[in-house]
């Protein structure tokens, strides 16, 4: 469904959807030349274990529970979820798919130092970020059964992956800068043509039988301003590789940038780190050209937040 950035480190961020943290990695990510019309999807060499190999014991139960939470957090981690999204919306195939921030790409990269909070973060702390920002909820405390199950699921999925090595297919692809600066009007055209069918004319998503089928892209039920997807570069990489669902790599790079910009130029719930001032919050947490927080688009100042329904 969704979203990206260009920052200092040039390291593709696993779990990029969840927040702004940037682990400082030693391993350089292969530079992705990504020509404007690139369509090839770099195949990941890593193959996570088959779900049928989840062991049938007490350890396996935690793996299976983690998987259930990942697919349906509104049911299995209800207390910590504040919107209609699920982990799987940004990490496709239950977190298994390359170029969709797979768990097997993220798990071996932690613990990691993060410039965001200036300390070494464990994987569990990283998961907390997902709940705070992408799920617009609240973080389960360390040691909470929800975090234990999710970490167990990720650990199992990364079986055999080298520790500390950035695997191909990790995070979202980093697109080259577009020929034309991303543009709201062009993005709106792409949105109406290729996205509104599923995500709705107002990006509100669609539900059926009480479940979110197509996730909301902005507004009160989407990720908040602290999520990684609010950055146009992350969103463009996700969209390019994965959208429309099942037809990844069919949009041009320019279309992906434009529609990512369009999506991220809409209001969404406030960044939980909000300091009381949009400009101060931008300076502290959104000081990048890839964030539209605290900037004016179409005469509207973005970053005012939107109350959760």
């Amino acid at each position, binding site marked *: 469904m969704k979203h990206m950035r260009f920052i200092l480190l040039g390291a593709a961020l696993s779990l990029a959807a969840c927040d702004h943290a940037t682990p400082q990695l030693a391993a350089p990510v292969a530079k992705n030349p990504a020509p404007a019309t690139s369509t090839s999807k770099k195949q990941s060499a890593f193959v996570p274990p088959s779900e049928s190999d989840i062991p049938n014991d007490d350890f396996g139960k935690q793996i299976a529970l983690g998987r259930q939470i990942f697919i349906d957090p509104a049911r299995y981690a209800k207390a910590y979820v504040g919107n209609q999204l699920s982990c799987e919306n940004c990490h496709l195939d239950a977190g298994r798919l390359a170029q969709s921030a797979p768990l097997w790409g993220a798990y071996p990269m932690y613990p990691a130092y993060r410039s965001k909070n200036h300390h070494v973060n464990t994987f569990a702390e990283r998961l907390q970020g997902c709940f705070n920002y992408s799920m617009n909820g609240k973080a389960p405390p360390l040691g909470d059964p929800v975090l234990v199950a999710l970490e167990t699921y990720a650990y199992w999925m990364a079986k055999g992956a080298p520790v500390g090595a950035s695997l191909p297919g990790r995070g979202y692809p980093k697109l080259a800068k577009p020929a034309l600066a991303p543009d709201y009007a062009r993005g709106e055209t792409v949105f109406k043509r290729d996205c509104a069918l599923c995500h709705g004319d107002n990006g509100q998503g669609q539900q059926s*039988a009480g479940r979110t089928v197509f996730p909301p892209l902005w507004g009160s039920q989407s990720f908040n301003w602290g999520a990684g997807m609010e950055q146009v570069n992350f969103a463009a990489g996700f969209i390019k590789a994965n959208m429309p669902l099942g037809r990844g790599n069919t949009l041009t790079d320019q279309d992906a940038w434009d529609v990512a910009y369009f999506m991220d130029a809409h209001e969404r719930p406030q960044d939980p780190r909000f300091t009381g001032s949009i400009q101060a919050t931008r300076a502290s947490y959104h000081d990048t050209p890839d964030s539209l927080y605290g900037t004016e688009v179409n005469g509207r100042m973005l970053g005012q937040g939107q109350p959760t329904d």
Partner: protein
Amino acid sequence: MNTLRATLMVLLTLWGSHALADAPNGATIAQQGNGHGVAPCLACHGADGAGQAAAGFPRLAGLSQAYLRKQLDDFAGGTRVNATMQPVANGLSDAERDAVATYYSKLPAPAWTLSPAPSGDAAQTGQALAVRGNWTKSLPGCEQCHGPDGVGVGDHFPPLSGQSAVYLSNQLHAWQQGARRNDPLQLMQNVATRLSDADIAAVSAWYAAQSMAPSKEKQP
């Protein structure tokens, strides 16, 4: 005052019956045809709009009006090729297509006779494709667009539950072969080209064995 009210009532009644006489009646078309050569829908789709499983005539009852209307337009226009439905759709006026689509959209979802559940490998394949897809082939699960247990989503993603294996399989083959190409964003044509014959048989049988009410719990 009473006279005025009575007059108003008479006028309203006359106006109402006049309007009814002009607008095509969906129920009449469904049950008797349109009087200009189009056979009644129920001949194939059943009195309750449930379709006929063995013949592959689909359920219409309870589907979205906009979806049904679009299918009639596409039968007529040739983007959904079907020798039976093309003359039917062509024989219906614009207003008649609207009326009959509205009629079926408002019929309650009919009682559904579940096909026997598939077993063995076919059952596993069918469920996996329905729920998860096969991402090694960039293939989303059916329910990622058609909703939990295939109950359908909005005007563009019709229900798969409550349809027969024969109908579902015919459609998937039609998408594959290009006889049906009326899908938005070519979503179904792309899906179908990634399915084998065995995949199509398995997933069609799986949906035909599902209840129309979504299950409460999802299994991992």
